[in-house]
């Protein structure tokens, strides 16, 4: 019996390892290629290089405006995460707590799905026209505004599920004792839902960090390009220099990888609360 169980466990881990390797194969291939020299990358098709070199990384950091793109993306993603965190929290709280008072909030889930259906391309055309008119095109503020608006619906949906899971009695007691609603929100609801708030902020950060389509039509000048647009321009610039392209790509995914490895508990918790209520 015991031997059978050991074999079962080994089989289970073996299966998982194979699946995980299969899923991350493109990733491993990318990392391996980024350390190959230009000559080796076209001739050696093993995953890892024979001669390990930092040449591609030096090339990216010294000969391209890579760091400018990183700075732009950091500004945009942090701004998006902070504003989405605050506004979605407020809205999500109201949607969780005021359904008895405001009928419209009960239809939020339906409205949310419809908001998701807007083809972003439909918004792209008028946004370009409007942004040129009000002077928001080619600016980090403009593109952040778009990301904030795009992330608010999903994040509000997620965080309202989180607030619904927190017992309302404590807040009611505090309000009877003279707290305003806003005070009980700040002092009771927010501290209890920090994991949820962390998860929506990470979600918004990653969304803003990764987005390409809007940034590609709104921010055209070199000094305000975000990382994905900059990376895409490398394809033309590097031509067939796959090594440098892979090195730039590896650098670009570091924040997302750090988030998923260290914060996955919060991401999972946040999504769970939002999604499970359906």
């Amino acid at each position, binding site marked *: 019996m015991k031997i059978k169980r050991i074999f079962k466990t080994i089989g289970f881990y073996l299966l*998982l390892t194979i*699946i995980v390797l299969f899923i991350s194969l493109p990733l491993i291939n990318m990392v391996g290629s980024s350390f190959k020299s230009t000559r080796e990358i076209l001739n050696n*098709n093993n995953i890892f290089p024979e001669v390990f070199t930092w040449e591609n990384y030096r090339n990216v950091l010294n000969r391209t405006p890579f760091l400018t793109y990183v700075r732009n993306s950091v500004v945009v993603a942090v701004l998006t995460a902070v504003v989405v965190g605050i506004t979605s929290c407020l809205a999500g709280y109201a949607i969780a707590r005021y359904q008895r008072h405001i009928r419209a909030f009960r239809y939020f889930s339906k409205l949310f799905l419809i908001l998701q259906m807007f*083809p972003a*391309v439909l918004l792209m055309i008028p946004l370009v026209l409007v942004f040129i008119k009000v002077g928001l095109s080619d600016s980090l503020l403009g593109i952040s505004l778009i990301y904030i*608006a795009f992330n608010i619906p999903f994040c509000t949906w997620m965080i309202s599920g989180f607030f619904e899971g927190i017992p309302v009695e404590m807040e009611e007691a505090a309000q009877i004792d*003279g707290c305003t609603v806003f005070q009980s929100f700040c002092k009771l609801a927010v501290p209890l839902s920090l994991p949820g708030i962390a998860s929506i902020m990470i979600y918004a950060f990653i969304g803003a960090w990764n987005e390409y389509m809007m940034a590609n039509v709104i921010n055209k000048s070199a000094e305000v390009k975000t990382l994905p647009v900059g990376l895409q321009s490398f394809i033309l610039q590097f031509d067939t220099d796959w090594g440098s392209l892979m090195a730039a790509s590896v650098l*670009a995914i570091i924040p997302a990888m750090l988030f998923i490895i260290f914060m996955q508990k919060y991401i999972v918790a946040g999504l*769970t609360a939002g999604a499970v209520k359906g």
Partner: protein
Amino acid sequence: MKKKKRKTAAEGYLFVMPATLIVLLVTVYPLVRGILVSFTNTNFLYPQKAKFVGLKNIIDIFKDKEFISALGFTIFFAVSSVVLIYLIGLALALLLNREFKGKGLFRAIMLLPWVIPNVVASNMWLWMLNDQTGMINLTLLKLGIIKEPILFLATPFMAKISTVIVNTWKSFPFMLLVLMAAMQNIPKELYESASMDGANAFQRFKNITLPMIKPVSITSTVLIMIWSFNNFETVFLLTKGGPASATSNISIYMYNSAFFRNQMGYASAIALVMLVFMIVLSSLYQYVLNRKED
């Protein structure tokens, strides 16, 4: 003296105000403008010359052969993506839905594709699928499974398949996360009593797990369907809509109409038609699935 405070509707509105204002300004206002533009012949190069043309754009769409073929690929792409993503997400969620050492690590690696920027994902896959130096072709050639390299992105049929595979790779983690969450919420007692009544693993899956995760499955498949339907980045970055517009979906067709042929009005009309189409389709889907339950 303690004054008893009661919640009022006004407070609720105050709380949702900042979020609503931003969404109204940056999403709803442009949307309304987009709808208005779709009844005009707005040209990006001469915005002041725009004239109202009524329903002409919308009538033109249904006579447009390129639109019909884009619609065909979009439906193929969305449906096959949803099926693959749901099946893979479900299988992996079932696999991970137990306690074991290293669960967090395995889950983290499985979630990685989801957080990788589309630009990077497409570069990675372009490199993998390359017919001269790509890892897949080289491995298959070495093993003698194929004689000639497969042109993953250069023939219409393979390009369509490749885009679906990359989209599935990129999106299954969301499904996995959501389904795992739903499975964790199923009370353990249900399984215990079913086991005592002699139900085997498959029966427990069919009669407990599947019905219990149904509401979540409906919402998340609708979301994935919508996202795949509107997908622009994954396909555009991989193939630019080629070869010979075989993988040009509705979004890419709209993008090209608006920014290369400068037909803003016509492109907006396509977007409007798609929006109506999608609202009808997803309402129908939710209605049918929810009705079966009763």
